[in-house]
């Protein structure tokens, strides 16, 4: 039983050591504390069960994060389509009223002035971005986060959530439209 005890000890040790990092990683992508908790738990249990497969080539943290990434992708794959897929309603709502019938700007992009000058302003801006991402449809925010923050290619993204590449571009467009507008209203106050 010695080996099992050691494994068990390890899983608890991972929780102590990497629990916060894994939780933040999950939160940044699913924006829901209960889902994030479940994902961290599943990750640690899966790691515990497959410890013998851990080659030691990467760090434990990288290994755990890899497992978590897959768990997150599974989560979004299983989400009901109406949540995230580029259905017409969602797509329309990201551009609704922004353009007139001739597809010219109706709600015109405002002048955002200069970039945030100091750390304080930047922190505030990040908080607004976070709130905006949290408000977005889940899969939209996830796809956008993978693209802009992790630098994943659209190819990698559609593989991960198993959707067509065209759908990915539509989702990214929608995310940018929503985030731009959300910042305009909530940060630049227009």
């Amino acid at each position: 039983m010695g080996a099992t005890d050691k494994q068990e000890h390890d899983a608890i040790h991972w929780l102590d050591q990497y629990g916060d990092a894994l939780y933040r990683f999950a939160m940044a992508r699913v924006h829901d504390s209960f889902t994030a908790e479940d994902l961290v738990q599943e990750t640690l249990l899966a790691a515990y069960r497959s410890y013998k497969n851990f080659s030691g080539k990467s760090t434990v943290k990288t290994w755990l994060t890899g497992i978590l990434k897959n768990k997150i992708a599974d989560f979004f794959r299983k989400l009901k389509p109406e949540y995230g897929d580029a259905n017409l309603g969602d797509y329309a709502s990201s551009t609704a009223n922004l353009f007139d019938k001739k597809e010219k700007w109706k709600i015109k992009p405002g002048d955002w002035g200069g970039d945030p000058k100091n750390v304080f302003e930047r922190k505030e801006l990040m908080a607004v971005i976070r709130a905006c991402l949290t408000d977005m449809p889940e899969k939209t925010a996830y796809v956008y986060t993978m693209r802009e923050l992790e630098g994943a290619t659209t190819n990698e993204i559609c593989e991960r959530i198993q959707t067509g590449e065209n759908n990915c571009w539509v989702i990214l467009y929608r995310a940018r439209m929503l985030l731009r507008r959300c910042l305009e209203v909530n940060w630049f106050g227009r």
Partner: protein
Amino acid sequence: MRHWMFSCKKITSMISESMDRDLSLYKRMGIRFHLMMCALCRRYRKQLLFIKSVLQQSDGVEDIFCQSLPSDARKRIEEKINDEGKHSHD
């Protein structure tokens, strides 16, 4: 034709697309001509690039979401791990 051949709405999606893949020459020229004429779409493009640059300057996504694992959640996970340990003894 004032804005060459693409509408503002179409241009906004093409600009977004250009951030994810290389566009055809036809589309690139379309965007360039449109932007020469249209201050609002120029502004839109600048704003998208600004948002992208802000996100890329942050030290990763987790930075934006600076929560740590709540202690009650930690306890629940710990119990699960211990359970799992017991089962594998059986």
